[in-house]
Every structure is written in structure tokens, then in C-alpha cells.
């Protein structure tokens, strides 16, 4: 599991690569929570290379979303593959979490917000 962070137009883009399960989620949780602590307000998670996510991974996403929201921030997700999208759907997230087909779409929304 790899986490690659970049800044793009005032947005923190986090690219996740690999499998996000109960074994790999603690490191990703630490990485994402560090963004909250450093007061980032706009976070985009690029899921293009995220092959798999389980409930342990979703738990991290929801925890970060909650923490960011409390500080007036936003997190959105882009380029989810079929199985990752299915996990989001099974958890009932689509109406509650920003999901976009491409990183560009997500960036445009975050920049406008």
C-alpha cells in the first residue's frame, strides 16, 4: 500500500495505491489524519490505483471525513474502480460522500467550493 501526496491548485491530492484492508489501514489513517492536523481544508483522494477497500478502509475514510468536517474542511473521492465503488455503494455512501469519475472533475468542484 502506497500513499502519495501532492498539492494541486490549493487542494491536497492523496493518491492511494494497492489494497486498503485491516492490515494496511493504520498507516493510511495516520497519513490522512496528519493532513487534518496540519489544517488542510480540501482533500482529494485519487482512487485510480486503489485495487481494493474493505470496511476497515472505509472506517478510515469516514473518520477523516468527520474530523475534516469539524474543522470546516472537505474530502472527496475520485476515479473509483468497480469493486471500490461497490463497497462505497453497499455502505450507502454515494448520497453522503463526494465521488467523481475523474481527478479533474473532483479538482474543479473543490476549487469552486
Amino acid at each position: 500500500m502506497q500513499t502519495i501526496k501532492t498539492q494541486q491548485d490549493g487542494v491536497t491530492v492523496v493518491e492511494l495505491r494497492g489494497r486498503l484492508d485491516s492490515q494496511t489501514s493504520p498507516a493510511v489513517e495516520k497519513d490522512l489524519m496528519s493532513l487534518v492536523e496540519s489544517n488542510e481544508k480540501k482533500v482529494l483522494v485519487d482512487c485510480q490505483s486503489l485495487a481494493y477497500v474493505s470496511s476497515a478502509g472505509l472506517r478510515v475514510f469516514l473518520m477523516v471525513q468527520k474530523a475534516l468536517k469539524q474543522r470546516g474542511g472537505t474530502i472527496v473521492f475520485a476515479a473509483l474502480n468497480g469493486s471500490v465503488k461497490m463497497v462505497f455503494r453497499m455502505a450507502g455512501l454515494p448520497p453522503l460522500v463526494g465521488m467523481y469519475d475523474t481527478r479533474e472533475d473532483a479538482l474543479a468542484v473543490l476549487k469552486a467550493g
Partner: protein
Amino acid sequence: MDGTLTLTNDLARLADVAHLVHQFGEAHRLGHETRFALNLALDELVTNTISYGFDGVAEPRITVRLALDGEAIVVHLADNGLPFDPLSRPEVDTTVPLEDRPIGGLGVHFVRQVMDELHYEHAAGENRLTLRRRLRPGDGIPDEQAGG
């Protein structure tokens, strides 16, 4: 082929579970969605057992077996942990706002979604789960598109 794997209480072995599903999927030409379903169900259940099931258990052991039974894939999962029926958990209400949701329980909810039949029993000192998933149109097709 049947696929069998024995695990201890080590989350690092989840990669072995994924590998087992991959091998079984290749051998039976299972479609991408079915491989994902098997992966997710096993991951969630094994994670729960490793995280909560082995308190005070001297030699933790989980066995996973995948088999094809006619028109269905059968997953046998057994562990020598504390007696616990994961299917006894109340259903998760995914329409509740995120802030109001309890954080656990989603894993078993996923298992219910991706498998067709679930059965639990406690016997001979073991938790035994049997899960079935009917073969889908994308399974068993001798076509490269069925891979994944």
C-alpha cells in the same frame, strides 16, 4: 481444485487469503465480481476473528476452505476462538446519516450483500461458518474477459 489455508492471529496473512482467492479464481475461471466477493467476505470475517475472537486463546487458528459445489462456491471458515456468531449482529442501517452511525458492523453487512447463503454453528470447540455464492454469468467462461 479446492483451496485450503490455515492462518493464525496475524493480519499480515490477509495477503495469503487474497492469494488463495486468486488461485481458486484462476482454476475455476471465476469472474472479477465473484473474486471480489470472495475476497471481501473472507477479509471481513477473518479480520473480525483476528481482532476480537482470540482473547486468551493459546493457539489461535483459522482455517479457510474454498470449494465448488455444483452451481455454487462454498466457503468454509472455522476458528478455535471465543464462541461468536457474526450473523447475530443486527443489520446495519445504511440510510442513517454518517455522523449517527456506529462505526462497526459494516463488515458483516458486506458479507451478507456479496454472499447468497450464510450459516453459523459452534461445534467441537470451533466457530464454523459456511457461506455460499451461486455462480454468476461471468463465472466459468473460457474467455480472457472472465479474468481479473
